[in-house]
Structure formats: C-alpha cells, structure tokens
C-alpha cells in the first residue's frame, strides 16, 4: 500500500523512513531541490548545539530505502479522493501520485519581518533576522559583518508572535530559547560584545532550556531586559537606536545597538491552507491545520485518510516534530490495517 507524504522537512522525512520500515511504499514530495526544509537554514540546534546540517544528512541517508520515492522540485497542488480511501495528489510537474493515505508535513514559514515596519528590517542595514544570524554563524561572517565586530547586540523577542497588530495571536514557542542559544553563540565568537535580550516572557518549555537560560546569565554574561520594542531608528553612524520600557524598572529605556536581531516567529506555510482546503480539512484561525482532537486526535484530521505531522499544526521544536512524525506513522499504519479489515 502506498502513502503520499507532502513536505520533505524533518517531519516528512522521519515519517517516510518509519512507514517504509513498516513495509509500506512512500512517495515523498518536496518543493525545494533538496530535503530538510527550514532546517537547511539553521547552523546549530538547541539545547545540545547539534549541527543542523548533520541532522539533515542523517534524515537524508535514511531516505535511501527501496520503499521510498523522493520527488524534489515538485509542489503538491491539490488532493482529491478519487474513490473512498483512495487519494490522488496532483503535483506542479503534472505528475499525479496515488495513495491510500496522505500525510501533510508542510511545516511552517518564518515571519516576514518587513511587515513589522517600525522595527526597520529592510530599511536599516544593521537590522537582521534570527534566520540570517544562523547564516552568519555558518559562514563565520559575524565579526566582519560591518567591517568591524559589533560592540553591542540586541535580540528582540516576539517579532511576528503574540502580536495582534500583524494578526498573530500565537506564541511561536521556539524564539525565546533560540535567542538564548544564539546569544551564547555570539558570546563565543565575540568575547567583548555586550549582549541584551528584550523579552516579554521567557518561555523555556523544554528539557534543558531553563538551565540554558541560567547558564546564559551565569557563564556568558547575557543581559535580559523585560520590555517589548516599540520602535527602532537609525542614527548618523548607521547604528540602531531602540526604545522600550524596562518594565521591571518602570522607566522608558533608550539604547544604541551595533546590531539588532529580530527573533522572527513561525507562521503556517502557504501550502498548508491550500492542500487542507482541497480536502475540507479545517484550519485554526492562524492558518495552522486543526487536528481532529487536541489531545486524543493529534496526527488525525477531520477527514479520514488525511494525516498531519510536525509544525503544520502548530509551532514545534525538532524534538517534538520528530516524535510527532513517528506518532503519525503509527496512526497511519493503524488506520490502513483497520481499513484493510473492512475491505
């Protein structure tokens, strides 16, 4: 029996490997020219500082399985139920894939920081996103970014998250711990730099995260200011001047930064809504796919035969994404063996 998996990020790749291991054949569809998804833009992962490229390689090697057919540079456009329990997935390259189940592993996209215009991304040179900082880590280009090493760096939490003004009510969960991880990485590269994190709440939800936060203060001398950035401006030296309230002091605070890093949040991928819509799978108001039940029906959707894995249902870290993918593989197997009995 064949299963079509849409999205070759960590969730799709892990589920493909697990399902192939159970004896199913799998078509894995990826719109880019290689697997890995957003993981390809990351340098190191929290909390253990694992190499992101190393994890992608590991996921890729597991796809070398006779049961798995990889379709790269192909975007899934539409899902149709050709007969009860038989699905046809149309790709951008005109191919039509057939499966007894479809797994949506369409993931997320990072928030477009240009939408938060008052933060100056795309306007001021020294405003970058957390994703771009990962790239600077990979290329070891941070120290020479503007000719000389920055002396003061600020990380701005919750950019594109918990913000009614850009219609994202949700917390992206990962940005807090990512900021702590990135601040530590910056400290290792630039021992003299002054580093600040501007946060609303520190949400250290995973194992080892709170410990990392403590270590950031204790060992890496990272400073934390509780306040949300209201606006940023550029001075004549091209530095960024930020305005926040230091809410724990109760006074407005101004600070000049040599580099401002925007911790961009997670939004539903464009493909999720289109594909879910083609099979009447409901979405949350923020565009993520709604599971059949938030406790007992994760990986399942309102439409039997259509499953989900990973961050297409909500912001998720890699640990949870891979766990969710394995769980999805089990749910699919359960459903297929059940429907076999009924046939």
């Amino acid at each position: 029996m064949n299963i079509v998996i849409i999205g070759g990020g960590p969730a799709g790749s892990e589920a493909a490997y697990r399902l192939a291991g159970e004896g199913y054949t799998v078509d894995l569809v990826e719109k880019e020219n290689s697997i890995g998804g957003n993981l390809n833009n990351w340098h190191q992962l929290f909390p253990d500082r694992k190499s992101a490229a190393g994890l992608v390689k590991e996921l890729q090697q597991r796809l070398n399985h006779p049961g798995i057919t990889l379709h790269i540079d192909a975007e899934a456009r539409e899902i149709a139920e050709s007969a009860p329990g038989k699905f046809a997935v149309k790709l951008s390259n005109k191919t039509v894939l057939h499966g007894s189940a479809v797994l949506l592993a369409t993931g997320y996209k990072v928030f477009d920081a240009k939408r938060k215009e008052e933060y100056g991304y795309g306007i001021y040179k020294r405003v970058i996103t957390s994703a771009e900082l990962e790239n600077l880590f990979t290329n070891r280009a941070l120290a020479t970014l503007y000719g000389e090493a920055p002396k003061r760096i600020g990380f701005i939490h919750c950019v594109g998250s918990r913000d009614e003004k850009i219609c994202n009510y949700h917390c992206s969960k990962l940005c807090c711990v990512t900021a702590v991880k990135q601040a530590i990485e910056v400290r290792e590269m630039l021992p003299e730099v002054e580093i600040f994190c501007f946060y609303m709440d520190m949400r250290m939800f995973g194992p080892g995260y709170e410990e990392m936060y403590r270590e950031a203060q204790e060992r890496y001398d990272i400073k934390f200011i509780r306040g949300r950035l209201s606006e940023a401006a550029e001075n004549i030296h091209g530095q960024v001047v930020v305005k926040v309230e230091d809410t724990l002091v109760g006074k407005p605070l101004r600070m000049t930064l040599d580099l401002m890093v925007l911790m961009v949040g997670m939004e539903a991928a464009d493909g999720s809504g289109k594909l879910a819509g083609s099979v009447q799978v409901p979405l949350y108001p923020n565009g993520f796919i709604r599971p059949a039940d938030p406790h007992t029906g994760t990986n399942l959707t309102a439409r039997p035969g259509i499953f989900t894995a990973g961050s297409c249902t909500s912001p998720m870290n890699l640990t949870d994404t891979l766990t969710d993918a394995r769980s999805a593989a089990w749910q699919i197997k359960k459903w297929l063996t059940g429907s076999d009995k009924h046939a």
Partner: protein
Amino acid sequence: MPTLWGYSISAARSIDYDKNDQSFLRRLAHSCPSSKLCIGCGGCTAACSAGNLTEFNIRQLQMLVKRGETRETAEQLHKCMLCGKCLLVCPRGVDTRKMILSMKRFLREHDQ
C-alpha cells in the same frame, strides 16, 4: 506557632487588596473590556509622548488601578495628551484611548 519572621506587611508600603476600593477597577473592566488584555509589555510606555517628557507611565498607572490603587493615577492622568501612539503599538489591541478617557471620567465623577 508564630513563625520566626512573622507575617505582616507595612500598610504604607503594600497594596492591600482586601481593603482597597475596587469599584474603580470594576467600572474600568466594564467600560473598556480590552483593558483586561494587557500583558504588561511596556510598548505603550516606550512609545508614550507624555512619558518622553515627564514621569508619566501609562502601563504602571492602569496596573495600579487594576489593583485598587487610584491615588497616583488621579495625580498623573492629566499628563496624557491622547496622541494615540500607545494605541498603535499595543500588541494586545487594548483600546488605550478609551481606557484613559474612561479613567478620566471616573475620576471626575469621583471628585464631584
């Protein structure tokens, strides 16, 4: 058995939520329900025109009202110029303009 440290807070230093007059905070929640959405991020205070020039801190003042502490708010509220910048930055969509106007009205009625 009494504890070594005792259990008392100096009345002058503390918010006594059992004794404070809560009519003001109830009226505020009723006339401006969005004021309940504040998460204390301070975006309003950072953007504030009045806070730029004076000791005015809108986040703190509305929080004091919500704890039944109205005296400081009564003293400070006239500093607001209703420029509306707080309304533009609030990530929770608090109708800060309405919140301030409501507080001003209650204080006026209270004085009469």
